[in-house]
């Protein structure tokens, strides 16, 4: 392998390590968030106060079923062909959102007080 190849191999490895470090940094430094926001096609559909949840319940958005529990949310059912949003598991902080690209549904946690969903809090 020529010198240019070696330099690039080192650069790629560094990029991968930096990305891995970024993932670890984000997941260890995430803080608990109060509200779960559910977006469909870029519009906020529900905003749920997670500290008020006593019994777990589900919210249906289109064909995606979102399981809301105290302090965490997860996607429990969806009709997308890959089912990746279900496999993304539960989120408890703001490090990553749950994304279902085929149905354009995003669930993320935040502390932002705006537009709190009055109905879904029941």
């Amino acid at each position, binding site marked *: 392998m*020529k010198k240019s*190849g070696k330099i*690039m191999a080192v650069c*790629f490895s560094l*990029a991968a390590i930096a*990305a891995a470090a970024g*993932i670890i940094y*984000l997941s260890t430094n995430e803080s608990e968030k109060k509200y779960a926001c559910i*977006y469909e096609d870029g519009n906020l559909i529900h905003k749920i106060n997670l500290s008020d949840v006593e019994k777990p319940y589900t919210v249906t958005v289109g064909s995606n079923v979102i399981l809301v529990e105290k302090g965490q949310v997860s996607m429990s059912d969806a009709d997308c062909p890959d089912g990746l949003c279900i496999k993304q598991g539960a989120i408890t902080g703001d490090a990553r959102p749950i994304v279902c690209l085929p149905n354009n549904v995003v669930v993320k946690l935040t502390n932002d007080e705006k537009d709190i969903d009055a109905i879904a809090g029941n």
Partner: protein
Amino acid sequence: MKRTKHFYLVLISVMASLSLGLYALESLIPPIVAVPGVKLGLANVITLICIYIIGTKHALAVLLLRIFLSAMLFGQPVSLTFSLFGGLLSFFAMAVLKRFLCEENIWAISVFGAFFHNLGQIIAAVIITSELSVAYYFLVLIISSVITGVFTGICAGYAVRKLKKLNLGV
């Protein structure tokens, strides 16, 4: 071999169907990581081979054929947007880098191709969901693009060396 219009027509068709076949084969592999966009990118092997063997212009035709046919045959409505963003960004990155890197470094071009493919898809995802936090998944995609890029790049490099010996054309 004489390089006529028909020669390219046949070569582009064969390459497009090969790439479509690999794309279909790849979709049978169950996802390893629960992140949309993590995949081997076997179809990119063909794109790379085309860039080196039949030239950039014809390689673009192969890529566009593959993108539109795969969206029509197996795609969901959104997949065409993602394929176009990822595919074209990756293609132009590879076509430019080909001028600066020697043939021995096809694997590196492939890594850049995979990287820009994922970058394009993340941009498409941010636009479609209008949610910037989706960009978190780009970190995962960087790691996967290095691994899969090296793999597909080695495959393409091997094929390019063999095909050059056959003296196909360009």
